[in-house]
Structures are given as structure tokens and as C-alpha cells.
């Protein structure tokens, strides 16, 4: 995100300072940093709030060392002991998120408006790193390997060893992947991952759920984005704009707590939906719609109204305008609008963990279950599988349509 901010910053602003004989140091502290500060702060707040509401990371890393966070407490209370207390906690989390959002709005919406001043940003100045280039590239490549490739290797390795912690060759086994019965090594005779019906069922559920969410969130999001941009400036467009973004800011688990309370018992004509595929699909759709509507908004903003009007004047109907003009022109961001919900859904835990029952487990909740049981080989192997599926789908879509996740978010 910060990369995007720096890219959009108008190079003229720095050139103007350069011409007035500003030193490098002064340029950094008086021009560059203050200029990007709001955006950086806003990124910081978003990261902060998503960390606040994350569940998966602390529960995998924090559980062994008893590092309790709010989401874990929430899960425990909701899952049994004291649901009332849980709802109160959910409410607190929502309030914190709203507070962060409000603060963010205040930071951005000051007198020093950062967007209206620049007309169009023209030149992009590339910094010539000269001799620093090779070492800097090396360090960056190293960092990328450390944070992206290294965990995968670890997952793979950890899923192959019999006794955790012992990395000798004799301790390696494939039985967690293809063994029929691992009772000898751990627990209740759980078959190896690839032969495990629970895994195949969860995989099927995950894919079914992700595809459903992607289709509904993607389509709805695109239409919402279209509506917001085309109705730009009207009150209703502004309201829809902020409403559509709201689910994004809701901590996932608090969000699902609300769904749990809303749909767990029969009300009026709506039967109890707890444990059904429908409720998972519903919450996924709502939660991920902001991604799709953002990418819909981004792509529609780039598309001049006149392109569509030109079609309208010669009598092309709305549906045909969409399928023949708008969507083909913005194909790649249109596809990202589906891809983002799909991939987020594939790797989502906190949103589903409260609502899943053993019957409709998805991959991530199965992973959580393995982890809770302490079967680290299984959870590592499953983790690896999820990552591979996500990467594969992104690659496939990228290959076939040219869309990719980063384009969707970058905007």
C-alpha cells in the first residue's frame, strides 16, 4: 500500500523543493514524510485493526505460550462457557474498530487536503540506486525468500517428521500424507492426509463455499461499485459506499458472533440456520463484498462515463452494455473482484470457526481442529495444501485472464 502511495505522490512537489535548494535531509523531513504521513498512518491503523481482529495467527502461535488475545477469549466463551459474555466482547471489538475508523477519517479529512491540490501527477521519478543497487536487491530477495518461501519449506518438512523436533533422516516419513493408519505414531488411527475422507470433504466444502462466495460477492460487489460510481455525488451513493465498506472493518469473529446470535434459533419464517452451508455462504458473501465493490469502484472510476453513454445513445441495452463494453474493457479488475473473495474465503478461519459444525468443516476449520488436537504434522501438511491451492488458483486466473490479486487491491 505504501508503495502505491509513493508512486502516486506527485514528483513535481519534490522537484519544486529541489529547485529551491532544499537539502536532502530537509526534503525528507519537511516534504516527503509529511506528505505521505496520513496515508502511512492510515495504513498503520488498518493493519492495527486487522491484527486486533485476527484469530488464526494468535491461536496458532499464542496457544502454546498462553498468549491470550481478545478473539481467542471470544471464541472460548462463545463456543461454550458463557455466550452472553461473548456477545459483550464482540460488541467491544466492533466499537474498537469503529473508533479506529473514525480516527482514521479524522486524520485524513483535515484542512491539508492531499488530493485536491495535485492536478495530475506527471513524471514518475525513478531513484537511481547506482552502486547500492546490487546489495539492496540482494537484501530484498533474501527478505522475500525468508517471509514467503521459508514457511512453505518448513510446513513441508514438519509434515514429514515422526517426532517433532528431530530432523534426522530416519525420523522422516510419508505416512502423514499417505499412511492408512497412523495410530502407531499418534492418536486415534487417523489416516494420512491424502487418504483422509475428512480432508476431502473439507476440501470440497471449502471450494464449494469459496466459489459460492466469490460468485455472489463478486457479482454483487461489481454492481454495487457500478452503482456507487455512476450515482456519484448523490447522497445515496455516499451512504451505499460507506455501508458497502463496513463489513471489511468489522472484526470477522465479532461479525460471525452476530450472525450466530441472529440465526441460531428459529425466528418468524427463518428457520435456524446454524450449521448450514447457507449461513457460511451468506456471511462470506457479506464479508467479502467490500473487496469486490472496491475493485468494482476502482475499475469504474477509470472508465469514462462517455464510453457507456456512447453505447446508450445508439440504443444498446444495459445488459449488453455491461457484457459487451464495460466488462471486456475492465476485464482484469472485474476478474479480481471474483478472485479476491475466493482466495480470502479459502484461507479464512475466524469468520467460520464459530459457525462451522463437524459436518460442514472447511479446510481452515479442519486445520484448527488438528491444531487443537496437537497433531502438528497434520496441521502443517494441511497448511501447505491450502497455500498451494491459493497460489495455484491465483496463478491459473492470472494466466487465463491477466488479473491478479495485487491489481485488485492496488487500484
Amino acid at each position, binding site marked *: 500500500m505504501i508503495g502505491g502511495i509513493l508512486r502516486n505522490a506527485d514528483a*513535481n512537489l519534490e522537484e519544486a*523543493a529541489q*529547485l529551491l*535548494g532544499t537539502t536532502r535531509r530537509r526534503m525528507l523531513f519537511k516534504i516527503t514524510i509529511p506528505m505521505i504521513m496520513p496515508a502511512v498512518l492510515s495504513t498503520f491503523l488498518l493493519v492495527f485493526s486487522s491484527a486486533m481482529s485476527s484469530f488464526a495467527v494468535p491461536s496458532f502461535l499464542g496457544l502454546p505460550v498462553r498468549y491470550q488475545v481478545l478473539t481467542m477469549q471470544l471464541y472460548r466463551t462463545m463456543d461454550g462457557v458463557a455466550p452472553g459474555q461473548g456477545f459483550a466482547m464482540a460488541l467491544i471489538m466492533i466499537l474498537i474498530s469503529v473508533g479506529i475508523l473514525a480516527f482514521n477519517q479524522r486524520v485524513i479529512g483535515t*484542512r491539508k487536503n492531499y488530493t485536491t491540490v495535485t492536478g495530475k501527477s506527471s513524471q514518475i521519478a525513478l531513484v537511481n540506486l547506482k552502486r547500492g543497487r546490487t546489495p539492496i536487491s540482494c537484501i530484498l530477495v533474501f527478505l522475500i525468500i525468508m517471509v514467503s518461501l521459508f514457511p512453505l519449506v518448513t510446513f513441508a518438512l514438519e509434515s514429514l517428521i515422526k517426532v517433532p523436533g528431530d530432523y534426522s533422516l530416519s525420523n522422516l516419513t510419508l505416512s502423514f500424507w499417505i499412511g492408512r493408519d497412523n495410530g502407531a505414531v499418534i492418536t486415534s488411527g487417523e489416516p494420512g492426509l491424502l487418504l483422509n475422507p475428512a480432508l476431502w470433504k473439507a476440501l470440497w466444502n471449502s471450494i464449494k463455499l469459496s466459489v459460492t462466495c466469490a460468485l455472489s460477492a463478486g457479482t454483487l460487489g461489481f454492481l454495487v461499485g457500478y452503482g456507487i460510481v455512476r450515482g456519484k455525488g448523490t447522497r445515496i451513493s455516499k451512504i451505499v459506499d460507506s455501508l458497502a465498506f463496513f463489513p471489511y472493518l468489522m472484526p470477522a469473529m465479532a461479525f460471525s458472533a452476530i450472525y450466530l446470535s441472529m440465526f441460531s434459533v428459529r425466528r418468524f419464517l427463518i428457520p435456524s440456520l446454524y450449521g448450514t452451508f447457507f449461513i457460511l455462504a451468506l456471511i462470506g458473501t457479506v464479508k467479502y463484498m467490500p473487496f469486490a465493490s472496491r475493485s468494482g469502484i476502482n475499475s469504474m472510476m477509470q472508465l469514462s462515463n462517455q464510453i457507456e453513454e456512447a453505447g446508450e445513445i445508439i440504443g444498446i441495452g444495459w445488459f449488453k452494455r455491461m457484457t459487451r463494453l464495460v466488462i471486456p474493457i475492465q476485464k482484469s479488475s472485474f476478474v479480481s473482484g471474483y478472485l479476491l473473495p475466493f482466495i480470502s474465503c479459502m484461507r479464512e478461519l475466524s469468520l467460520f470457526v464459530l459457525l462451522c459444525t463437524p459436518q460442514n468443516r472447511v479446510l481452515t476449520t479442519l486445520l484448527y481442529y488438528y491444531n487443537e488436537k496437537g497433531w502438528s504434522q497434520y496441521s502443517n501438511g494441511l497448511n501447505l495444501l491450502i497455500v498451494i491451492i491459493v497460489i495455484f488458483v491465483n496463478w491459473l486466473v492470472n494466466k487465463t485472464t491477466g488479473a491478479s490479486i495485487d491489481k485488485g487491491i492496488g487500484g
Partner: protein
Amino acid sequence: MPRIELRNITKKFGDFVAVDNLTLDIKDGDFITLLGPSGCGKTTTLRQIAGLEMPTSGEILIDGKVVFSSDKSIDVAPKDRGVGFLFQNYALWPHMTVYRNIAFGLENLKWKKDDIDRRVKELLKLLKIEEFPDRYPAELSGGQQQRVAIARTLATNPRVLLMDEPLSNLDAKLRMEMRAELKRLHHETGATFVYVTHDQLEAMTLATKICLLDRGYLQQYDPPLTVYNRPRNTFVADFVGNPTMNLISFSGERKDDHSCILHHKDMRLQFTSQDVLPEDLGKVTIGVRPENVLVTENGGIKVKVDTSLPSGMETILNLRLGDDVMLSCVMIGSVDYPSDSEIEVVFKDVQVLMFDGEGNFAAPGSVKFI
């Protein structure tokens, strides 16, 4: 007050040549406009003078001092060239007040606080923005932002002021006002101004000299009236002036050094000039400014009125000459000829220009329809 010299400046972006072997001598205290269609290399030229862009080859001198030379590997930093730069989109720092924007450059020069205060107040007054020192740029209108940008650029007393389409984001009325003010500023500061624009009217009204570029090539570098009356080629003739110059192609037949007969279909006319005409005529182009097409009672050539566009002060007539030539004509005052009515016109003496087969200026002269 410095002179700016560009010597054989070439700028390539990859294989694309944005500025092609440009040599330009800008005299002390001049107000130069770099004029040309969009993408012809005006901004690139200006940025090279400022030092924001590095020429691929050539030499730039400011005040007799080499500030860039590809051969001698000299590249003086922008801040040491003594130039001010006015950006098209103003480039005001959004997080600083008007006062701080203007004071910033002076602080860099380590001026004393009192001196800075005095200088900023002076500029606020000069540019008529005394009321807004504490506002942020986003709280100003386009015209006011423009004034702040000018004040910021002038604060350090640059000897050269480079401006990149500074008025293009303003509305028509404000643009007129600011033009007059820039002219006043040029007079008051005595600095050398280099001004980029794609608007030929702006270039005509402001400049002491116009530098007309096309696709990176220098087309003409002369005072506005010379460019207007003696365009070096048909591109210049066509680019400068509104409505555009009438350009009609003929085949020529030389009679003697000073006269020739021109044909176009069944139209025949005699061209006479004070100057010696080119040896072989072949295809030539005749150019007549619309204001030199005069409506007359008798003795002219018959034309048909296509449209007449009165605007109060003047009337533009589009006329059909024969079956394939359109002529435009500007008359002072409002007259309204009905479409398809027939009138007679003559071309004003000595104001008719002849261009040779390559489109280069050949000779001025007079024509008579025969």
C-alpha cells in the same frame, strides 16, 4: 540578468527522440514562449534548462556559465542554476500554509526570520493574496493557488523564470487577467522568462520571441509578428493565427525573376514580388491571412458564401472559391451575408506569401486574378 544558450540539445527517451538537436539563444530579459502542439517536446526542453531532466547530448549555458555539457560531463544541480520553475499543476505543498510555502525557499537560504517575513509580505502584496497567508492550498481557488505558486517561485529572486503552461488550469477570464499580470511581473522583475504553452494566442500576446517546435524540431525562432507575417514554413503558417491562414496549392510557371503565373484547375492568377522568385517553381503553396482577404464591390474574384459567423466585433466568413477551395475571411464589424450569396474578394497587396514545394517560405508578394 542572464542569457540562456542551448547548443545542439538532443533528448532521447529510449529510442524516441523528444528534442532533436535544438539550438536556441535566449537573450537577457527576454520573454520567450516555447510553442507547439502537445507532445512536441516543450516540457522536456524546459525541464532540461532547469536541470530536472538530463539531455542525451548537447550543452546548456546560463549567464555564460556551462551548466550542462555532455562532452565535458558537467551537470550543475538545479538549485545552483538560479532558475525558478512554475509547474503546470502548481505543485504547492499541501501540508504547508501559503505563508510557509512561500517562505520555504528562503529558509533554505538561511535568511533571517525578519527578512523572510518582510519578503513574504512583499510577495503576498505583489500577487494580491495578502488575505490568505494562513490558508492551506486546498482551501484556495485555482487562480489563488496559481498566485501562491508564482510567489513561491519569485521569493528567492531567480534570474530565470521557467513556466510550464502555468495558466492552462484556469478559466478563460482568469487566464486573461493572469496573462496581463505575468507581463507586468516580467517588466517589474526584469528576469528572463521562458514560458511553455500550446496556445498560440498566449504565445503571441506574451512573448518577445516565440520558439515554435514540432516533433522535437525547431520550426522558427522569431518575434511574434515576424512569426505571424513571415512564417518560415507552412507548418508555422498553419499553427499560428486564428482562424488559420488560407493555404492553396498551385502549379507555377515562371515568367521572369519577379513574377509568375499560377494555376489551380481553371483558376489563373499572376503573382508578383519584390524578391527574386525561386528558379524552378513546380508546385507551390500560396498563403493568405484571413484578414487579408478583402470583400470588394468590383474587380475581385467571385466567391460563394458558405457560412457567415458574426461575433460582434468581427465576422468570420467561410467562402467557396471554385468547387474545391475554401477561404476564410475576417471582417471588422458585423455583416451578415446569407448562405450561397455571391460576393467578390481580393487579396491584400504584398501580404500574400508563397511557399515552395517543400513548404518552405519563398517570397511575399501580390496577386491578381486573370
